[in-house]
């Protein structure tokens, strides 16, 4: 991919948003997934994105990582407007994602999945030795135990698979990490492990993170700020200290009740 002219330092030292999303809409034919989304992400910030199923969280994430293109609206990276043409393009700009479906290939080994489309190569051949070594190192650092990095990922548990997907993104040298339900297949212990990783990234201060999650307690524990996505719009933007699990739960439940009432009225 091309080298980007975008990632320039801000000379005035002002805190600028690494990522701004303005009036993003996404329609699939007659279906509107996102109506008008505005959000911002500061450097080193961890933003929790919550909302009920079908609110458009995953769609938004897929737009931000270049997998899909928005119908309208603009994305600004470090204050410069960008058009994300592809996942590769987004990666070259320092944006990387862990997808809900993990994007792992069952038929490939752990280390080939770890470096999928970012393979270490001594042209023209793959440097399998290097990839094996680094994979072992990454997983050891995270405290993940797997039988062997040579095993096919098909043989691994849900939590192990998720850990590999997260490790892959964390080690991608991304400036912006997008995590779509990274805790979904996790037990309590593994969930804590992922949250620790996010805390570490936060402490390093270089990486900004957007996490989609359903467990509000975990979101509030690790995030600086929370955005609520409802029916294709951001309806709430609070710092984590200003809100609570009860408030977030009530907002989502209230939305559900309102929709139910409307349906009953129209019926």
């Amino acid at each position, binding site marked *: 991919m091309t080298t980007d002219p975008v990632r320039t330092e801000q000379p005035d030292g002002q805190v600028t948003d690494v990522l701004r999303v303005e009036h993003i809409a996404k329609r699939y034919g007659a279906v509107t997934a996102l109506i008008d989304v505005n959000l911002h992400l500061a450097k080193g910030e961890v933003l929790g994105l919550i909302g009920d199923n079908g609110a458009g969280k995953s769609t938004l994430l897929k737009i931000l990582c270049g*997998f899909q293109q928005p119908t309208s609206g603009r994305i600004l990276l470090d204050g410069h407007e960008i058009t994300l043409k592809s*996942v590769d393009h987004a990666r070259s700009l320092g944006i990387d994602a862990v*997808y809900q479906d993990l994007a*792992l290939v069952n038929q*490939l080994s752990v280390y080939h999945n770890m470096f*999928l*489309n970012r393979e270490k190569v001594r042209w023209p051949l793959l440097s399998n030795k290097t990839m094996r070594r680094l994979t072992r190192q990454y997983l050891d650092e995270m405290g993940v*135990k797997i039988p062997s990095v040579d095993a096919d990922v098909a*043989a691994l548990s849900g939590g192990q698979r998720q850990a590999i997907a997260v490790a892959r993104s964390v080690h991608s040298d991304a400036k912006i990490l997008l995590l779509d339900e990274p805790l979904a297949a996790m037990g309590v212990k593994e969930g804590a*492990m992922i949250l620790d990783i996010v805390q570490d990234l936060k402490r390093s201060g270089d990486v900004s993170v957007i996490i989609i999650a359903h467990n509000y307690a975990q979101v509030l524990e690790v995030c600086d700020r929370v955005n609520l996505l409802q029916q294709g719009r951001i309806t709430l933007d609070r710092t984590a200290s200003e809100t609570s699990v009860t408030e977030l739960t009530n907002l989502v439940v209230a939305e559900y009740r309102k929709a139910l009432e409307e349906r009953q009225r129209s019926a």
Partner: protein
Amino acid sequence: MSDTIQDAPRVAGEPPGGPVARNGITGRLRGAGIFLMKQREATVFVVVVLLILYFGVISSAGRSTFFTKIDLINLTQYAAPIIIIALGEVLLLICGEIDLSVGFTYAFAPFMMHFMIDYWHVPGILGIILAVVFGGVIGWINAFFTVTLGLPSFVTTLGTGFVLAGLILTTSHGTQASIPPAVTGIGHWIGTYAWSEIVWAVILTALFHMLLRRTRWGLHTIAVGGNALGAAEAGINVARIKYGNFMLTGMLGAFVGVQIAFQTGIIDTFSGGSAYQPMFYAVAAAVIGGTAMLGGSGTMIGAFLGAAVLAVLVDGFNVIGISAYPEQIYFGAAILIAMIANVQLARVRAAGRIR
């Protein structure tokens, strides 16, 4: 999983899943058994060896013998074209596609060489190269219909196969052509010498094995066939991989067509459906060699050995003097048995019992 690291990183090369008993003959046999089970190609290799031994013993009892030079040449000349076409089909099958038209590419390519050299006065070697490139163009067209227009490749290549068959008959007026004199010299190295075809097949198998196992292209081909959405999410250009593999298959088919023309000394029209035959044998070789029809896995060496199984069967029947009529019964049975073995072995492997 645990959140602490108890044991040191595993030593490279140590087989996963615990140490294997290595002392004593039983231990060694067990180790060899596990090794064989782990190598997908090994089962086919055993079949090839057993078949050769079988035909060797049977024929040495009679007057003719299976191990004479002429039989080995027959064997390799029968196997080589199947092997080379199968290399392309393996790539396509792994990424979830198939090319049924490659037999017609194979029939058309030597005509292209003939037209270019004899009618358009293209220099000899360039004519051969352009004939192979022409195969790539047919592959590109197959990919365009399949990837860009979204037709299943089974349908696409069924259609393009018929079109090509018609084009061959139309452009050649249904008559054979002779090899252009300008290329008979170089033709020896491509297909006329008795051993040239099998040498090409071995070289190409080695190259494609490396392509599949040791390069990004091969890895991405497996990724596309194993999880197309996941591969796309990881940023792999799925369309590019499929286009490339269709084009490689077309080029391999065209090259084999040129080889066969040199070997037989004539450019044949393969009128009617007979051009399907090399494709079917190539797919059969791929499948016997352990390539999954559903995509995501396959091996080049397996395809090589699969073609060897077919060739040994045919040649063996000839040598021991069995009539050609039941030949295809054995072919079909071989494919079915190989498939059953592959499915069952895959199940055992998936259960992790031999990892």
